[in-house]
């Protein structure tokens, strides 16, 4: 018996699936086809968007597996992540377990279901433009920048400036992401990422990433705090960061920052939770992430 497939209201029917051999191939296809072409990582988010009827205008899929963009390169000044690197490699790579300042990245890549971690790529997680994915939140606290390439050349965009609105990023129709760059992290720093979700295969209800840098007196010299699933975009919460700086990270300072956090975010209400619940959850995740990062600073 043949299967009955319920077509979405607006069907996703690309004409062609192209296996690009070089970066120039991709640049040239995107120059010619712009928004009607889409670069494929593993296609997980594209599939989900297509089911929602959001990709009906896409006529060309561009597979970038053969471009050699599956790498993690670590040097003293910079860590480079290729666009096609799957999430499980971030989870397992020694540098993200060893460098306390970058631990948030392996925390964010260490999620279930494994079926997604094994296939999803770094650029896919970033370019989906969904506030619910974990990696952008974690990358923001390590000051990651992304390299966007088009026929006009390349440009580097700080990830914290990349998200414009729900499903909307700063990526132009003729560009694609080739690399993520993480600068050398400040000394005496540690980061952590915490999330909560209702079931293994569901999206997080909320997530928080934090990086704390201590000065020689053991006070918080600098901090980064970013949120996911707690607003329309993954974003840094700078008032929270400011309130942590120059404190000794005692329970009062953390409570004051947590209180600012619930004012700075604007979480939605949906079938999973109310916005009010998410605000309370954010405080709790923030306190847990702080505790995790502080403990890592002691190692």
């Amino acid at each position, binding site marked *: 018996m043949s299967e009955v497939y319920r077509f979405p209201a607006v069907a996703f029917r690309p*004409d062609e699936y192209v296996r690009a051999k070089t970066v120039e191939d991709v640049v040239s296809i995107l120059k010619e086809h712009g928004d009607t072409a889409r670069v*494929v990582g593993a*296609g997980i988010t594209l599939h989900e968007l297509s089911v929602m009827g959001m990709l009906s205008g896409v006529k060309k899929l561009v*597979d970038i597996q053969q471009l050699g963009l599956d790498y993690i390169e670590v040097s003293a000044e910079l860590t480079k992540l290729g666009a096609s690197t799957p999430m499980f490699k971030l989870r397992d790579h020694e540098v993200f377990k060893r460098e306390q300042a970058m631990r948030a990245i392996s925390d964010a890549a260490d999620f*279930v279901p494994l*079926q*997604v971690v094994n296939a999803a790529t770094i650029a896919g997680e970033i370019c989906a433009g969904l506030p619910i994915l974990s990696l952008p939140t974690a990358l923001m606290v390590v000051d990651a920048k992304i390299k966007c390439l088009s026929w006009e050349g390349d440009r580097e965009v700080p990830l914290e400036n990349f998200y414009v609105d729900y499903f909307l990023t700063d990526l132009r129709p003729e560009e694609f992401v080739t690399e993520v760059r993480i600068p050398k992290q400040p000394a005496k720093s540690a980061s952590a990422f915490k999330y909560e979700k209702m079931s293994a295969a569901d999206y997080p209800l909320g997530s928080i990433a934090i990086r704390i840098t201590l000065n020689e007196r053991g006070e918080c010299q600098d901090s980064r705090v970013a949120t996911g699933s707690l607003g329309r975009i993954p974003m840094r919460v700078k008032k929270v960061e400011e309130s942590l700086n120059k404190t000794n990270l005692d329970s009062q300072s953390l409570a004051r920052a947590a209180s600012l956090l619930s004012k700075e975010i604007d979480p939605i209400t949906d079938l999973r939770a109310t916005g009010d619940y998410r605000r309370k959850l954010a405080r709790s995740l923030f306190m847990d992430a702080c505790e995790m990062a502080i403990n890592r600073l002691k190692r």
Partner: protein
Amino acid sequence: MQIDLRINGSDQSVMIKPHESLREVLRRIGFTGVKKGCDVGGCGACTVLLNGDPIYSCCVFAAWAQGKDITTIEGLATGGELQLIQQEFATRNAAQCGFCTPGLIMSAKALLEKKQNLTEEEIRRGIAGNLCRCTGYVKVVDAIASASKK
């Protein structure tokens, strides 16, 4: 378009449409052990192994899987002889309606290939992406734990 897939150790040329998922193509060419569940990467009924690791076949493009080793539930038993993990599922009654079973067995197979003597936590984490609405997982975990000790 035509693609070449390596499924259960055999090469196959298949005509597909560019948007088709691996799940759709596998079922169309006869691998009906790959179940259609939620079709958006949420239930795990469509789980297959790609180069030995479990993935949701419903939400990757079939064309993307070209050149990778695909293993479906049909690739486990040889000559009618069940593999150890299949035997354990059968003898411990780890299936009820059976719809989730192929996906669960594929996730379990990947776990067992990587490590023996799995803890309950490791098993539960390994099968977290597979939903079962009948058995409540206890017997599934027992079956995988037993296989991991043999």
